[in-house]
Protein backbone atom coordinates (compact mmCIF):
# COMPACT_ATOMS: atom_id res chain seq x y z
CA UNK A 1 0.00 0.00 0.00
CA UNK A 2 2.80 2.35 0.91
CA UNK A 3 4.04 2.80 -2.64
CA UNK A 4 1.34 5.28 -3.64
CA UNK A 5 1.92 7.40 -0.52
CA UNK A 6 4.11 10.16 -1.85
CA UNK A 7 2.87 12.98 0.33
CA UNK A 8 2.31 13.45 4.03
CA UNK A 9 -1.31 13.69 5.12
CA UNK A 10 -0.91 17.42 5.67
CA UNK A 11 0.45 17.95 2.17
CA UNK A 12 -2.26 15.77 0.66
CA UNK A 13 -5.12 17.50 2.48
CA UNK A 14 -3.89 21.02 1.75
CA UNK A 15 -3.15 20.23 -1.89
CA UNK A 16 -6.72 19.04 -2.24
CA UNK A 17 -8.09 22.15 -0.53
CA UNK A 18 -6.01 24.26 -2.95
CA UNK A 19 -7.81 22.44 -5.77
CA UNK A 20 -4.75 20.64 -7.02
CA UNK A 21 -4.64 16.86 -7.43
CA UNK A 22 -2.50 15.25 -4.72
CA UNK A 23 -1.05 11.70 -4.97
CA UNK A 24 -4.44 10.23 -4.05
CA UNK A 25 -7.72 11.43 -2.59
CA UNK A 26 -7.48 12.30 1.12
CA UNK A 27 -9.45 9.84 3.27
CA UNK A 28 -11.24 11.68 6.05
CA UNK A 29 -13.76 10.08 8.40
CA UNK A 30 -15.58 11.68 11.34
CA UNK A 31 -13.87 9.22 13.63
CA UNK A 32 -14.64 9.96 17.27
CA UNK A 33 -16.91 6.93 17.64
CA UNK A 34 -14.58 4.63 15.69
CA UNK A 35 -11.56 5.66 17.75
CA UNK A 36 -13.39 4.95 20.98
CA UNK A 37 -14.83 1.61 19.87
CA UNK A 38 -11.87 0.19 17.97
CA UNK A 39 -9.52 0.92 20.86
CA UNK A 40 -11.74 -0.94 23.30
CA UNK A 41 -12.65 2.22 25.17
CA UNK A 42 -16.01 3.71 26.10
CA UNK A 43 -17.03 7.36 26.24
CA UNK A 44 -16.69 6.95 30.01
CA UNK A 45 -13.09 5.71 29.95
CA UNK A 46 -12.16 8.53 27.55
CA UNK A 47 -13.67 11.21 29.77
CA UNK A 48 -11.71 9.72 32.68
CA UNK A 49 -8.41 9.90 30.75
CA UNK A 50 -8.03 11.98 27.59
CA UNK A 51 -4.69 10.33 26.77
CA UNK A 52 -6.60 7.17 25.89
CA UNK A 53 -8.41 9.11 23.19
CA UNK A 54 -5.13 10.47 21.82
CA UNK A 55 -3.75 6.93 21.59
CA UNK A 56 -6.97 5.71 20.01
CA UNK A 57 -6.77 8.37 17.27
CA UNK A 58 -3.10 7.56 16.68
CA UNK A 59 -3.96 3.86 16.33
CA UNK A 60 -6.76 4.63 13.88
CA UNK A 61 -4.59 6.92 11.74
CA UNK A 62 -1.85 4.32 11.59
CA UNK A 63 -3.96 1.24 10.95
CA UNK A 64 -6.57 2.78 8.66
CA UNK A 65 -4.47 5.42 6.87
CA UNK A 66 -6.88 8.21 7.70
CA UNK A 67 -5.57 11.64 6.74
CA UNK A 68 -7.14 13.77 9.47
CA UNK A 69 -7.32 13.30 13.25
CA UNK A 70 -10.50 14.37 15.02
CA UNK A 71 -10.76 15.86 18.47
CA UNK A 72 -13.14 14.35 21.03
CA UNK A 73 -15.81 16.82 20.17
CA UNK A 74 -18.50 17.76 22.60
CA UNK A 75 -20.65 20.54 21.19
CA UNK A 76 -22.76 20.78 24.39
CA UNK A 77 -19.58 21.81 26.24
CA UNK A 78 -20.72 25.32 25.30
CA UNK A 79 -24.03 24.88 27.13
CA UNK A 80 -22.07 23.65 30.13
CA UNK A 81 -19.67 26.60 30.03
CA UNK A 82 -22.71 28.89 30.02
CA UNK A 83 -24.25 27.15 33.03
CA UNK A 84 -26.21 24.07 31.89
CA UNK A 85 -25.79 20.62 33.38
CA UNK A 86 -24.00 18.16 31.08
CA UNK A 87 -24.81 14.46 31.18
CA UNK A 88 -21.97 12.07 30.31
CA UNK A 89 -23.39 8.60 29.54
CA UNK A 90 -20.97 5.68 29.98
CA UNK A 91 -21.15 4.70 26.33
CA UNK A 92 -22.79 7.45 24.35
CA UNK A 93 -22.15 11.04 23.34
CA UNK A 94 -22.65 13.71 26.03
CA UNK A 95 -25.86 15.74 26.11
CA UNK A 96 -27.80 18.35 28.06
CA UNK A 97 -31.05 17.02 29.58
CA UNK A 98 -32.56 20.40 30.41
CA UNK A 99 -32.12 23.46 28.20
CA UNK A 100 -30.79 26.40 30.17
CA UNK A 101 -33.31 28.88 28.78
CA UNK A 102 -36.61 27.12 29.42
CA UNK A 103 -37.73 30.56 30.54
CA UNK A 104 -36.87 33.41 28.16
CA UNK A 105 -36.33 35.81 31.05
CA UNK A 106 -33.32 33.76 32.17
CA UNK A 107 -31.34 35.25 29.29
CA UNK A 108 -30.44 38.04 31.71
CA UNK A 109 -28.77 35.49 33.99
CA UNK A 110 -26.44 34.10 31.35
CA UNK A 111 -22.85 35.20 31.68
CA UNK A 112 -21.52 35.01 28.13
CA UNK A 113 -17.93 35.71 29.17
CA UNK A 114 -16.55 32.19 28.97
CA UNK A 115 -12.99 31.13 29.63
CA UNK A 116 -12.17 28.04 27.56
CA UNK A 117 -9.12 27.38 29.73
CA UNK A 118 -11.28 27.12 32.83
CA UNK A 119 -14.95 26.41 32.11
CA UNK A 120 -16.46 22.93 32.33
CA UNK A 121 -15.20 20.35 29.84
CA UNK A 122 -13.47 22.92 27.59
CA UNK A 123 -9.95 22.74 29.09
CA UNK A 124 -10.13 18.94 28.81
CA UNK A 125 -11.13 19.16 25.14
CA UNK A 126 -8.33 21.62 24.41
CA UNK A 127 -5.80 19.40 26.19
CA UNK A 128 -6.81 16.50 23.98
CA UNK A 129 -6.07 18.62 20.90
CA UNK A 130 -2.66 19.55 22.31
CA UNK A 131 -2.09 15.86 23.09
CA UNK A 132 -2.98 14.90 19.52
CA UNK A 133 -0.52 17.43 18.14
CA UNK A 134 2.25 16.20 20.43
CA UNK A 135 1.55 12.56 19.58
CA UNK A 136 0.98 12.89 15.83
CA UNK A 137 3.46 15.64 15.01
CA UNK A 138 3.05 18.22 12.27
CA UNK A 139 2.25 15.86 9.40
CA UNK A 140 -1.31 14.97 10.37
CA UNK A 141 -3.88 17.78 10.34
CA UNK A 142 -6.22 17.98 13.32
CA UNK A 143 -9.89 18.75 12.98
CA UNK A 144 -11.87 20.10 15.94
CA UNK A 145 -15.60 20.62 16.40
CA UNK A 146 -17.62 23.52 17.66
CA UNK A 147 -21.18 24.77 17.42
CA UNK A 148 -22.35 27.76 15.33
CA UNK A 149 -24.52 30.49 16.90
CA UNK A 150 -27.90 29.27 15.59
CA UNK A 151 -27.39 25.72 16.77
CA UNK A 152 -26.02 26.97 20.08
CA UNK A 153 -29.14 29.11 20.54
CA UNK A 154 -31.37 26.13 19.70
CA UNK A 155 -29.65 23.93 22.22
CA UNK A 156 -29.75 26.57 24.97
CA UNK A 157 -33.42 27.33 24.46
CA UNK A 158 -34.69 23.95 23.24
CA UNK A 159 -35.32 23.66 19.49
CA UNK A 160 -39.14 23.70 19.63
CA UNK A 161 -39.18 26.85 21.72
CA UNK A 162 -36.59 28.62 19.62
CA UNK A 163 -38.53 27.81 16.44
CA UNK A 164 -41.65 29.33 17.98
CA UNK A 165 -39.66 32.35 19.11
CA UNK A 166 -38.62 32.88 15.49
CA UNK A 167 -42.29 33.22 14.60
CA UNK A 168 -43.50 35.15 17.63
CA UNK A 169 -40.53 37.02 19.06
CA UNK A 170 -37.74 37.40 16.50
CA UNK A 171 -36.19 40.22 18.53
CA UNK A 172 -35.53 37.80 21.36
CA UNK A 173 -33.93 35.34 18.94
CA UNK A 174 -31.60 38.06 17.65
CA UNK A 175 -30.76 39.04 21.20
CA UNK A 176 -29.88 35.44 21.99
CA UNK A 177 -27.80 35.06 18.82
CA UNK A 178 -25.92 38.26 19.60
CA UNK A 179 -25.23 36.88 23.04
CA UNK A 180 -23.99 33.42 22.00
CA UNK A 181 -21.86 34.47 19.05
CA UNK A 182 -19.19 35.92 21.33
CA UNK A 183 -18.50 32.70 23.32
CA UNK A 184 -18.65 30.75 20.04
CA UNK A 185 -15.88 32.94 18.60
CA UNK A 186 -13.86 32.71 21.82
CA UNK A 187 -14.04 28.91 21.78
CA UNK A 188 -13.20 28.73 18.06
CA UNK A 189 -10.09 30.84 18.62
CA UNK A 190 -9.12 28.61 21.55
CA UNK A 191 -9.39 25.53 19.32
CA UNK A 192 -7.08 27.17 16.80
CA UNK A 193 -4.63 28.17 19.54
CA UNK A 194 -4.61 24.61 20.87
CA UNK A 195 -3.46 23.38 17.46
CA UNK A 196 -6.55 22.64 15.38
CA UNK A 197 -5.92 23.06 11.64
CA UNK A 198 -9.56 22.60 10.66
CA UNK A 199 -12.65 23.79 12.50
CA UNK A 200 -15.81 21.72 12.01
CA UNK A 201 -19.41 22.60 12.49
CA UNK A 202 -22.75 21.12 11.64
CA UNK A 203 -26.12 22.78 11.95
CA UNK A 204 -28.81 20.09 11.70
CA UNK A 205 -31.47 22.34 13.21
CA UNK A 206 -31.04 24.88 10.37
CA UNK A 207 -31.44 22.66 7.31
CA UNK A 208 -34.26 22.49 4.78
CA UNK A 209 -35.91 19.70 6.79
CA UNK A 210 -36.42 22.22 9.58
CA UNK A 211 -36.52 25.89 8.58
CA UNK A 212 -37.29 27.84 5.45
CA UNK A 213 -34.64 29.55 3.35
CA UNK A 214 -35.64 33.05 4.47
CA UNK A 215 -35.31 32.07 8.13
CA UNK A 216 -31.91 30.52 7.45
CA UNK A 217 -30.79 33.70 5.74
CA UNK A 218 -31.97 35.86 8.61
CA UNK A 219 -31.11 33.84 11.72
CA UNK A 220 -28.25 31.52 10.80
CA UNK A 221 -26.26 32.67 7.78
CA UNK A 222 -24.91 36.06 8.92
CA UNK A 223 -23.89 34.76 12.34
CA UNK A 224 -22.00 31.72 11.06
CA UNK A 225 -20.30 33.87 8.47
CA UNK A 226 -19.17 36.44 11.00
CA UNK A 227 -18.03 33.76 13.46
CA UNK A 228 -15.75 32.07 10.94
CA UNK A 229 -14.52 35.41 9.64
CA UNK A 230 -13.32 36.38 13.09
CA UNK A 231 -11.78 32.99 13.87
CA UNK A 232 -9.89 33.04 10.58
CA UNK A 233 -8.69 36.59 11.20
CA UNK A 234 -7.24 35.29 14.48
CA UNK A 235 -5.49 32.28 12.96
CA UNK A 236 -5.16 30.71 9.55
CA UNK A 237 -7.47 27.71 9.92
CA UNK A 238 -9.68 25.93 7.41
CA UNK A 239 -13.38 25.41 8.01
CA UNK A 240 -15.55 22.34 7.39
CA UNK A 241 -19.33 22.71 7.35
CA UNK A 242 -21.12 19.37 7.69
CA UNK A 243 -24.47 19.90 5.97
CA UNK A 244 -26.41 17.27 7.91
CA UNK A 245 -29.75 16.43 6.29
CA UNK A 246 -31.19 18.33 3.33
CA UNK A 247 -29.42 21.56 2.32
CA UNK A 248 -30.12 21.56 -1.41
CA UNK A 249 -31.82 24.96 -1.52
CA UNK A 250 -29.20 26.79 0.56
CA UNK A 251 -25.73 25.76 -0.59
CA UNK A 252 -25.46 29.24 -2.11
CA UNK A 253 -25.57 30.78 1.39
CA UNK A 254 -23.45 28.13 3.10
CA UNK A 255 -20.64 28.54 0.59
CA UNK A 256 -20.54 32.27 1.45
CA UNK A 257 -19.92 31.62 5.17
CA UNK A 258 -16.09 31.57 5.10
CA UNK A 259 -16.28 27.81 4.61
CA UNK A 260 -13.54 25.82 2.82
CA UNK A 261 -14.91 22.27 2.94
CA UNK A 262 -18.49 21.05 2.56
CA UNK A 263 -18.96 17.68 4.24
CA UNK A 264 -22.19 16.67 2.58
CA UNK A 265 -25.02 14.29 3.38
CA UNK A 266 -27.19 12.71 0.67
CA UNK A 267 -26.62 14.95 -2.37
CA UNK A 268 -25.53 14.29 -5.91
CA UNK A 269 -21.81 15.02 -5.81
CA UNK A 270 -21.57 15.57 -9.57
CA UNK A 271 -24.12 18.35 -9.46
CA UNK A 272 -22.58 19.89 -6.36
CA UNK A 273 -19.15 19.77 -7.98
CA UNK A 274 -20.53 21.47 -11.06
CA UNK A 275 -22.22 24.28 -9.12
CA UNK A 276 -19.81 24.92 -6.24
CA UNK A 277 -16.75 22.74 -6.87
CA UNK A 278 -14.54 25.57 -8.05
CA UNK A 279 -14.79 27.52 -4.82
CA UNK A 280 -15.13 24.77 -2.23
CA UNK A 281 -13.73 21.34 -1.34
CA UNK A 282 -16.33 18.58 -1.29
CA UNK A 283 -16.16 15.84 1.33
CA UNK A 284 -18.37 12.77 1.13
CA UNK A 285 -20.51 10.83 0.84
CA UNK A 286 -20.73 7.07 1.36
CA UNK A 287 -23.91 6.51 3.36
CA UNK A 288 -22.91 5.97 6.98
CA UNK A 289 -26.03 4.22 8.29
CA UNK A 290 -27.36 2.28 5.29
CA UNK A 291 -23.99 1.28 3.88
CA UNK A 292 -21.10 1.64 6.35
CA UNK A 293 -23.06 0.47 9.38
CA UNK A 294 -25.53 -1.95 7.79
CA UNK A 295 -24.17 -2.78 4.32
CA UNK A 296 -21.49 -5.09 2.94
CA UNK A 297 -17.88 -4.25 1.99
CA UNK A 298 -18.88 -4.64 -1.69
CA UNK A 299 -21.56 -1.96 -1.29
CA UNK A 300 -19.06 0.31 0.45
CA UNK A 301 -16.57 -0.09 -2.40
CA UNK A 302 -19.24 0.67 -5.00
CA UNK A 303 -20.37 3.85 -3.22
CA UNK A 304 -16.82 5.02 -2.55
CA UNK A 305 -15.95 4.57 -6.22
CA UNK A 306 -19.06 6.48 -7.25
CA UNK A 307 -18.07 9.37 -4.98
CA UNK A 308 -14.58 9.46 -6.43
CA UNK A 309 -15.90 9.27 -10.00
CA UNK A 310 -18.24 12.17 -9.41
CA UNK A 311 -16.11 14.61 -7.47
CA UNK A 312 -12.39 13.78 -7.31
CA UNK A 313 -11.26 15.27 -10.62
CA UNK A 314 -9.07 18.35 -10.26
CA UNK A 315 -8.71 18.02 -6.47
CA UNK A 316 -11.04 19.79 -4.07
CA UNK A 317 -12.31 16.45 -2.79
CA UNK A 318 -12.01 14.24 0.32
CA UNK A 319 -13.40 10.73 0.36
CA UNK A 320 -15.67 10.36 3.40
CA UNK A 321 -18.98 9.17 4.82
CA UNK A 322 -22.16 11.26 4.69
CA UNK A 323 -22.07 11.93 8.45
CA UNK A 324 -20.10 10.83 11.49
CA UNK A 325 -19.36 7.11 11.28
CA UNK A 326 -21.62 5.30 13.80
CA UNK A 327 -20.25 3.59 16.91
CA UNK A 328 -20.80 -0.03 15.84
CA UNK A 329 -19.63 0.18 12.22
CA UNK A 330 -17.84 -3.09 11.27
CA UNK A 331 -14.08 -2.68 10.70
CA UNK A 332 -14.24 -4.55 7.37
CA UNK A 333 -16.54 -1.84 5.99
CA UNK A 334 -14.21 0.94 7.11
CA UNK A 335 -11.31 -1.00 5.56
CA UNK A 336 -13.24 -1.31 2.29
CA UNK A 337 -13.69 2.46 2.12
CA UNK A 338 -10.05 3.12 2.96
CA UNK A 339 -8.78 0.51 0.50
CA UNK A 340 -10.84 2.11 -2.26
CA UNK A 341 -9.34 5.51 -1.46
CA UNK A 342 -5.80 4.10 -1.44
CA UNK A 343 -6.15 2.31 -4.77
CA UNK A 344 -9.03 3.65 -6.87
CA UNK A 345 -8.42 7.12 -5.43
CA UNK A 346 -4.93 7.48 -6.88
CA UNK A 347 -4.59 10.41 -9.28
CA UNK A 348 -2.87 9.55 -12.53
CA UNK A 349 -0.58 12.37 -13.36
Amino acid sequence: MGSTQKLTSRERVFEAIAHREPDRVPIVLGSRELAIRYSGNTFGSIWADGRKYVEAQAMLIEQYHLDVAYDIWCTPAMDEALGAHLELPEDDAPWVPKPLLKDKKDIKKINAKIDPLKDGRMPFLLDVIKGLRARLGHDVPISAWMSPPFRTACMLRGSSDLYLDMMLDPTFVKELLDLVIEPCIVYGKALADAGADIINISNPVANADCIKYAHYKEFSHPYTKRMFGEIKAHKDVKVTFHTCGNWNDRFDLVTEENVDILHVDKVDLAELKKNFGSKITIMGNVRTVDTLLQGTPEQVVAEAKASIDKAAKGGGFFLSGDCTVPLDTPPENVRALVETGLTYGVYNH
Partner: protein
Amino acid sequence: MGKALQMEILDQLADAVIEGKITEIEALTQEAIGRGIAPMDIINLGLLKGMTVVGKRFGASEMFIPEVLLSAKTMNTSVEMIKPLLLGDDLGKAGTVVIGTVKGDLHDVGKNIVIMLLETAGFEVIDLGIDIPQEEFAQAVREKKPDVLGMSAMLTTTMMECKKVIEFLEKENLRGNVKVMVGGAPLNQSFATQCGADGYAEDAVEAVELVKKLVAH
Protein backbone atom coordinates in the same frame (compact mmCIF):
# COMPACT_ATOMS: atom_id res chain seq x y z
CA MET B 1 -77.97 30.29 12.16
CA GLY B 2 -77.55 29.33 8.54
CA LYS B 3 -75.37 26.43 7.57
CA ALA B 4 -73.48 28.59 5.13
CA LEU B 5 -72.43 31.08 7.78
CA GLN B 6 -71.37 28.27 10.10
CA MET B 7 -69.26 26.82 7.35
CA GLU B 8 -67.71 30.19 6.72
CA ILE B 9 -66.61 30.56 10.32
CA LEU B 10 -65.27 27.01 10.44
CA ASP B 11 -63.29 27.71 7.28
CA GLN B 12 -61.90 30.87 8.85
CA LEU B 13 -60.83 28.84 11.89
CA ALA B 14 -59.14 26.28 9.65
CA ASP B 15 -57.42 29.08 7.79
CA ALA B 16 -56.26 30.71 11.03
CA VAL B 17 -54.64 27.41 12.03
CA ILE B 18 -52.97 27.00 8.64
CA GLU B 19 -51.65 30.56 8.64
CA GLY B 20 -50.76 30.53 12.35
CA LYS B 21 -52.89 33.61 13.04
CA ILE B 22 -52.47 33.34 16.78
CA THR B 23 -53.65 36.90 17.44
CA GLU B 24 -56.93 36.36 15.58
CA ILE B 25 -57.86 32.91 16.78
CA GLU B 26 -59.44 34.03 20.05
CA ALA B 27 -61.92 36.37 18.39
CA LEU B 28 -62.78 33.75 15.79
CA THR B 29 -63.30 31.11 18.45
CA GLN B 30 -65.54 33.52 20.40
CA GLU B 31 -67.57 34.12 17.31
CA ALA B 32 -67.94 30.42 16.59
CA ILE B 33 -69.06 29.76 20.16
CA GLY B 34 -71.38 32.78 20.07
CA ARG B 35 -73.06 31.50 16.95
CA GLY B 36 -73.82 28.24 18.64
CA ILE B 37 -71.53 25.90 16.72
CA ALA B 38 -71.06 22.69 18.73
CA PRO B 39 -67.66 22.63 20.47
CA MET B 40 -66.68 19.28 18.96
CA ASP B 41 -67.56 20.64 15.51
CA ILE B 42 -65.30 23.63 16.08
CA ILE B 43 -62.46 21.22 16.78
CA ASN B 44 -63.11 18.59 14.15
CA LEU B 45 -64.53 20.63 11.28
CA GLY B 46 -62.50 23.78 11.90
CA LEU B 47 -59.22 23.36 13.76
CA LEU B 48 -58.29 19.78 12.87
CA LYS B 49 -59.29 20.34 9.27
CA GLY B 50 -56.73 23.14 9.19
CA MET B 51 -54.12 20.99 10.89
CA THR B 52 -54.57 18.26 8.28
CA VAL B 53 -53.64 20.76 5.60
CA VAL B 54 -50.63 21.80 7.69
CA GLY B 55 -49.51 18.17 7.90
CA LYS B 56 -49.76 17.80 4.12
CA ARG B 57 -47.89 21.04 3.42
CA PHE B 58 -45.15 20.05 5.84
CA GLY B 59 -44.80 16.73 4.03
CA ALA B 60 -44.49 18.59 0.74
CA SER B 61 -41.87 21.02 2.17
CA GLU B 62 -44.24 23.95 1.70
CA MET B 63 -44.23 24.58 5.44
CA PHE B 64 -41.39 24.12 7.90
CA ILE B 65 -41.16 23.24 11.59
CA PRO B 66 -41.51 26.81 13.00
CA GLU B 67 -44.69 27.38 10.98
CA VAL B 68 -46.06 23.97 11.99
CA LEU B 69 -45.38 24.65 15.65
CA LEU B 70 -47.12 28.01 15.39
CA SER B 71 -50.13 26.37 13.73
CA ALA B 72 -50.29 23.83 16.53
CA LYS B 73 -50.02 26.55 19.15
CA THR B 74 -52.72 28.58 17.44
CA MET B 75 -54.98 25.56 17.51
CA ASN B 76 -54.21 24.91 21.17
CA THR B 77 -55.17 28.48 22.05
CA SER B 78 -58.60 27.86 20.58
CA VAL B 79 -58.94 24.46 22.23
CA GLU B 80 -58.18 25.95 25.65
CA MET B 81 -61.17 28.28 25.17
CA ILE B 82 -63.43 25.48 24.03
CA LYS B 83 -62.48 22.95 26.69
CA PRO B 84 -64.74 24.31 29.46
CA LEU B 85 -67.71 23.98 27.11
CA LEU B 86 -67.15 20.37 26.25
CA LEU B 87 -69.38 17.80 27.90
CA GLY B 88 -67.85 15.19 30.17
CA ASP B 89 -67.91 12.53 27.52
CA ASP B 90 -66.34 14.80 24.94
CA LEU B 91 -63.13 15.49 26.74
CA GLY B 92 -60.65 13.93 29.10
CA LYS B 93 -62.61 10.72 28.90
CA ALA B 94 -61.25 10.30 25.40
CA GLY B 95 -58.38 8.41 26.97
CA THR B 96 -54.89 8.68 28.36
CA VAL B 97 -51.67 8.45 26.39
CA VAL B 98 -48.17 8.09 27.76
CA ILE B 99 -45.50 9.12 25.27
CA GLY B 100 -41.73 9.45 25.16
CA THR B 101 -38.65 9.32 22.94
CA VAL B 102 -36.70 6.07 23.31
CA LYS B 103 -33.35 5.62 25.02
CA GLY B 104 -30.35 7.10 23.24
CA ASP B 105 -32.57 9.41 21.21
CA LEU B 106 -32.90 13.12 21.91
CA HIS B 107 -35.26 14.17 19.12
CA ASP B 108 -38.48 15.64 20.43
CA VAL B 109 -39.84 18.18 17.95
CA GLY B 110 -42.07 15.62 16.19
CA LYS B 111 -43.18 14.05 19.45
CA ASN B 112 -44.17 17.46 20.79
CA ILE B 113 -46.39 18.10 17.78
CA VAL B 114 -48.05 14.72 18.27
CA ILE B 115 -48.71 15.66 21.90
CA MET B 116 -50.30 19.00 20.98
CA LEU B 117 -52.68 17.38 18.52
CA LEU B 118 -53.63 14.58 20.90
CA GLU B 119 -54.43 17.10 23.59
CA THR B 120 -56.52 19.03 21.12
CA ALA B 121 -58.45 15.89 20.31
CA GLY B 122 -59.29 15.56 24.00
CA PHE B 123 -56.74 13.04 25.21
CA GLU B 124 -54.82 13.36 28.41
CA VAL B 125 -51.16 13.08 27.50
CA ILE B 126 -48.33 12.31 29.90
CA ASP B 127 -45.01 13.27 28.33
CA LEU B 128 -42.05 11.31 29.69
CA GLY B 129 -39.55 13.36 27.66
CA ILE B 130 -36.50 12.16 25.74
CA ASP B 131 -33.91 9.36 26.22
CA ILE B 132 -36.38 7.17 28.11
CA PRO B 133 -35.14 3.73 29.21
CA GLN B 134 -37.45 0.69 29.08
CA GLU B 135 -37.84 0.64 32.85
CA GLU B 136 -39.28 4.13 32.81
CA PHE B 137 -41.79 3.27 30.07
CA ALA B 138 -42.84 0.20 32.07
CA GLN B 139 -43.17 2.15 35.29
CA ALA B 140 -45.38 4.72 33.57
CA VAL B 141 -47.61 1.97 32.18
CA ARG B 142 -47.86 0.41 35.64
CA GLU B 143 -48.59 3.64 37.49
CA LYS B 144 -50.48 5.85 35.04
CA LYS B 145 -52.46 3.01 33.46
CA PRO B 146 -52.69 4.70 30.05
CA ASP B 147 -54.84 3.37 27.22
CA VAL B 148 -52.00 3.89 24.77
CA LEU B 149 -48.22 4.01 25.04
CA GLY B 150 -46.45 5.96 22.30
CA MET B 151 -42.77 5.73 21.48
CA SER B 152 -40.89 8.08 19.20
CA ALA B 153 -37.60 6.99 17.58
CA MET B 154 -35.75 9.15 15.04
CA LEU B 155 -32.53 7.26 14.50
CA THR B 156 -31.90 3.99 12.69
CA THR B 157 -29.67 3.21 15.62
CA THR B 158 -32.38 3.72 18.25
CA MET B 159 -35.46 2.31 16.52
CA MET B 160 -34.76 -1.19 17.83
CA GLU B 161 -35.40 0.22 21.29
CA CYS B 162 -39.12 0.10 20.45
CA LYS B 163 -38.93 -3.65 20.20
CA LYS B 164 -36.93 -3.92 23.40
CA VAL B 165 -39.48 -1.88 25.31
CA ILE B 166 -42.33 -4.03 24.02
CA GLU B 167 -40.47 -7.19 25.04
CA PHE B 168 -39.78 -5.67 28.42
CA LEU B 169 -43.48 -4.86 28.87
CA GLU B 170 -44.23 -8.50 28.09
CA LYS B 171 -41.69 -9.68 30.61
CA GLU B 172 -43.20 -7.41 33.24
CA ASN B 173 -46.68 -8.69 32.43
CA LEU B 174 -47.79 -5.21 31.36
CA ARG B 175 -48.19 -5.69 27.64
CA GLY B 176 -51.83 -6.79 27.90
CA ASN B 177 -52.77 -3.60 29.76
CA VAL B 178 -51.88 -1.15 27.04
CA LYS B 179 -51.93 -0.55 23.29
CA VAL B 180 -48.55 0.39 21.89
CA MET B 181 -47.92 2.76 18.98
CA VAL B 182 -44.65 3.85 17.45
CA GLY B 183 -43.58 6.69 15.20
CA GLY B 184 -40.61 8.67 13.89
CA ALA B 185 -38.96 9.33 10.55
CA PRO B 186 -37.10 6.02 9.95
CA LEU B 187 -40.07 3.82 10.99
CA ASN B 188 -42.84 2.37 8.87
CA GLN B 189 -45.84 0.10 9.23
CA SER B 190 -43.95 -3.10 8.55
CA PHE B 191 -41.34 -2.26 11.16
CA ALA B 192 -44.11 -1.53 13.65
CA THR B 193 -45.77 -4.89 12.97
CA GLN B 194 -42.45 -6.65 13.18
CA CYS B 195 -41.60 -5.22 16.56
CA GLY B 196 -44.98 -6.13 17.99
CA ALA B 197 -46.61 -2.69 18.15
CA ASP B 198 -50.35 -2.24 17.72
CA GLY B 199 -50.02 0.70 15.41
CA TYR B 200 -47.85 3.15 13.49
CA ALA B 201 -48.60 6.66 12.28
CA GLU B 202 -46.65 8.66 9.77
CA ASP B 203 -47.48 12.08 11.12
CA ALA B 204 -49.28 13.80 13.97
CA VAL B 205 -52.67 14.03 12.24
CA GLU B 206 -52.56 10.30 11.55
CA ALA B 207 -51.43 9.70 15.11
CA VAL B 208 -54.68 11.19 16.41
CA GLU B 209 -56.72 8.89 14.16
CA LEU B 210 -54.62 5.96 15.27
CA VAL B 211 -55.11 6.66 18.97
CA LYS B 212 -58.86 7.01 18.45
CA LYS B 213 -58.87 3.63 16.75
CA LEU B 214 -56.71 1.96 19.39
CA VAL B 215 -58.85 3.30 22.22
CA ALA B 216 -62.07 2.16 20.56
CA HIS B 217 -60.88 -1.44 20.40
